[in-house]
């Protein structure tokens, strides 16, 4: 329990209490699941001994297949065999039209702005498709570890915006996975690398995956992995290198660019094979229709250099944001399958004036780092020796007068983070205010991503400028944003977990959950009651442990009496009641009564962190 962790940091559970947790790298092209077993983090294999699961989902007449077979079906059955779905996560239909030709799917509009893919099994959202991949990985994890998982750490590109993160978390929810943390891919790689090499100092992680590019600059200090800055492009990866080759082939063959989905898939598969071959040989023969030609490595380099340059630019920007000079970088670690391309390694090496490290498997390192973090979060390993401090990749802000974006939290701010900004009404008697939440670096709102709009209503009528509206942004450790707005004179409040613009609505998720669960609806109340009982037991245990440890020191007699009463009440309700609502109320009551006590305990734990230091320096 966390309360114990405060009192006795470093305590690890007994062996029989080991809790099963995995790290999942949900990639554009390939996905992996890894776990720590006997102190070693390693990828888990499927029944055939394979570690890599191609991120492909094939909706067949009677069933759904995931992985190699699904990927193989993409050319024959492109509308029903979905690959690279990660590129669609958290995006709107209009974003996708921009990506356009490379996506041979039949899109339909859903309830929200999220696009659906029309398959023979009906319209599927990218979240549902991702959930199929996650389900497959979860099953693999449970089979390999021999039991139910307490949860998973799922990695996301560091440059994913709020909508893309939320979509990933929703997919996990659909797959029945408890998300312990969304972890940024380069940070996960840094953990695997840093622990393996006992590294200290400034490290740059260059992560070029199938569909996304990230660069993170970290400072490693005795087990603390502090991200100084991150940068990237969530729509740039190996797929784009393939696309560059495909365009070249079409131009050479003087062929129409109006291809059928099958033709597109076939051409892209050929381009991908050519790209991979060119890492070994100096030229490959390609053909398209009646055309046949040779693609040399020089030509390939020319095709991809503009893309590589975009990644280098992001590296320079991240270094500037981190306020780190190139000479201060102690190591550059290459992550992601696309860093196998020699030209990429060369260019990165030139920028940093040092040989990039390529000795850690670029496909596995992210999953391994995630597994280590999952082990910590599940409580199997003392969190005392490992701490990850991450940042938000893109600034968060609000629309202000004139269509401008006002930043509330700047990019590369360490998370968790909370900032408040005050606004006022501009009309006499104004009773409502629209809050438009945005993410991005540009000044005009049309150049930023719209995350959500919501309204603060019920402001008492006042003269213009008299109302005081405080908008608070809070970003949690998953990098997810929560916004609340409050009118300070009246206390009127509104809040949202940011998601509506591009995410699934709660109704959509509820429907999908129902559809995906065979026994759904049968005993919803029983499940709700069981969940409340677990929560009640958890709270009772935590409070009793806390009272035993600090009750005397931190509570007055009266306070103690109130808490004891609330405990007794909860125990009675827990034993007798069959009503989830009644139990929930008793849980809520004990929570409220112990709120102040919990806060005091946490602050005592924090003060203890500085104890042993120069005591006379502590402020009176």
């Amino acid at each position, binding site marked *: 329990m966390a309360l114990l962790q405060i009192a006795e940091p470093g305590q690890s559970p007994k062996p029989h209490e080991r809790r099963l947790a995995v790290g999942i790298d949900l990639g554009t092209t390939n996905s992996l699941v890894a776990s720590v077993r006997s102190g070693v983090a390693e990828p888990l294999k499927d029944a055939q001994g394979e570690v890599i699961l191609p991120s492909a989902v094939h909706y067949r007449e009677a069933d759904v297949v995931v992985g190699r077979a699904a990927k193989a079906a993409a050319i024959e059955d492109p509308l029903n065999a979905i690959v690279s779905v990660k590129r669609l996560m958290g995006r709107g239909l209009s974003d996708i039209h921009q990506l356009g030709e490379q996506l041979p799917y039949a899109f339909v509009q859903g309830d929200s702005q999220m696009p659906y893919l029309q398959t023979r099994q009906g319209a599927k959202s990218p979240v549902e498709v991702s959930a199929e991949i996650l389900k497959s990985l979860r099953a693999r994890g449970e089979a390999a570890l021999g039991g139910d998982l307490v949860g998973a750490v799922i990695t996301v590109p560091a440059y994913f915006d709020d909508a893309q993160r939320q979509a990933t978390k929703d997919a996990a929810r659909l797959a029945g996975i408890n998300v312990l943390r969304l972890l940024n891919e380069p940070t996960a790689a840094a953990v695997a690398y840093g622990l393996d090499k006992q590294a200290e100092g400034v490290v740059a992680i260059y992560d070029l995956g199938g569909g996304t590019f990230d660069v993170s600059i970290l400072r490693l200090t005795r087990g*603390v992995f502090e991200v100084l800055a991150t940068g990237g492009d969530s729509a740039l990866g190996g797929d784009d290198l393939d696309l560059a080759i495909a365009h070249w082939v079409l131009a050479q063959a003087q062929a129409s660019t109006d291809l059928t989905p099958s033709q597109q898939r076939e051409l892209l598969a050929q381009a991908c094979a050519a790209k991979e071959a060119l890492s070994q040989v100096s030229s490959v023969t390609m053909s398209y229709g009646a055309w046949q030609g040779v693609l040399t490595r020089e030509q390939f380099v020319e095709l991809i250099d503009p893309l590589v340059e975009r990644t280098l630019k992001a590296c320079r920007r991240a270094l500037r944001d981190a306020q780190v000079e190139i000479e201060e970088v102690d190591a550059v670690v290459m992550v992601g399958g696309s860093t196998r391309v020699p030209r990429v390694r060369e260019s990165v090496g030139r920028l940093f004036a040092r040989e990039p490290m390529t000795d850690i498997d670029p496909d596995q390192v992210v999953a391994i780092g995630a597994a280590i973090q999952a082990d910590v*979060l599940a409580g199997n390993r003392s969190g005392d020796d490992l*701490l990850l*401090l991450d940042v938000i990749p893109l600034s968060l802000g609000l629309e202000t007068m004139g269509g401008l974006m006002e930043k509330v939290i700047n990019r590369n701010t360490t998370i968790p983070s909370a900032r408040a900004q005050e606004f006022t009404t501009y009309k006499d008697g104004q009773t409502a205010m629209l809050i438009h939440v945005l993410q991005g670096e540009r000044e005009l709102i049309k150049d930023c991503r719209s995350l959500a709009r919501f309204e603060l209503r019920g402001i008492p009528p006042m003269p213009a400028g008299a109302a005081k509206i405080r908008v608070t942004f809070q970003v949690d450790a998953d990098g997810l944003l929560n916004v609340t707005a409050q009118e300070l004179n009246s206390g009127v409040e509104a809040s949202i977990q940011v998601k509506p613009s591009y995410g699934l609505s709660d109704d959509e998720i509820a429907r999908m959950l129902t559809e995906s669960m065979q026994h759904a609806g049968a005993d919803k109340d029983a499940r709700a009651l069981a969940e409340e009982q677990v*929560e009640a037991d958890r709270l009772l245990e935590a409070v009793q442990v806390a009272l035993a440890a600090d009750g005397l020191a931190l509570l007055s007699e009266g306070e103690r009496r109130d808490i004891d009463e609330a405990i007794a009440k909860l125990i009675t309700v827990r034993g007798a009641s069959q009503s989830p609502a009644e139990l929930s109320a008793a849980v809520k009551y004990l929570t409220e009564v112990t709120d102040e006590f919990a806060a005091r305990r946490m602050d005592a734990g924090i003060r203890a962190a500085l104890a042993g230091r120069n005591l006379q320096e502590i402020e009176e």
Partner: protein
Amino acid sequence: MSECHFGLFGLKPAFELDLTELASRYRELARAMHPDRFADADAREQRLAIERSANLNDAYQVLKNPAQRALYLLRLEGHELPLEATVKDPEFLMQQMLLREELEELDRLDAVAAFKQRLKQAQAQQEGQFAACWQVPEQREEAERLVRRLQFLDKLAREVRQLEERLDD
């Protein structure tokens, strides 16, 4: 948590700080209150951990940056500075205008680097002066003037970074 940022770090309010020591205290504190330490706790404790960590991160940002630290020190003593108000510092304003004009002319990254160097020196100079006078009641006005100067220079440094980004395009 009504404690001031310095108190949170177990420090007395001061302008001159050992940044390495500050960073090390930050890491200790972050270890104690990061939400990762409470992954298994009930919702209430997770919420507390997020709030405490956010507060710690904010305090660290303020203390790390000399311009923000100076402003914070004066605020601690109950002086809210109306930064947008008229600045009675014509000499410095003139200097600022010249620097800004110079910045607009820069079109090469190496020239920007030289400019950055000079900016750093200017910042160090103002910081030194602030350190010497902020605790002296008779020099309060001077301290406030220096804080405004530091804010200007800080803003200029951000503009330099934006320029570097544009030049990199």
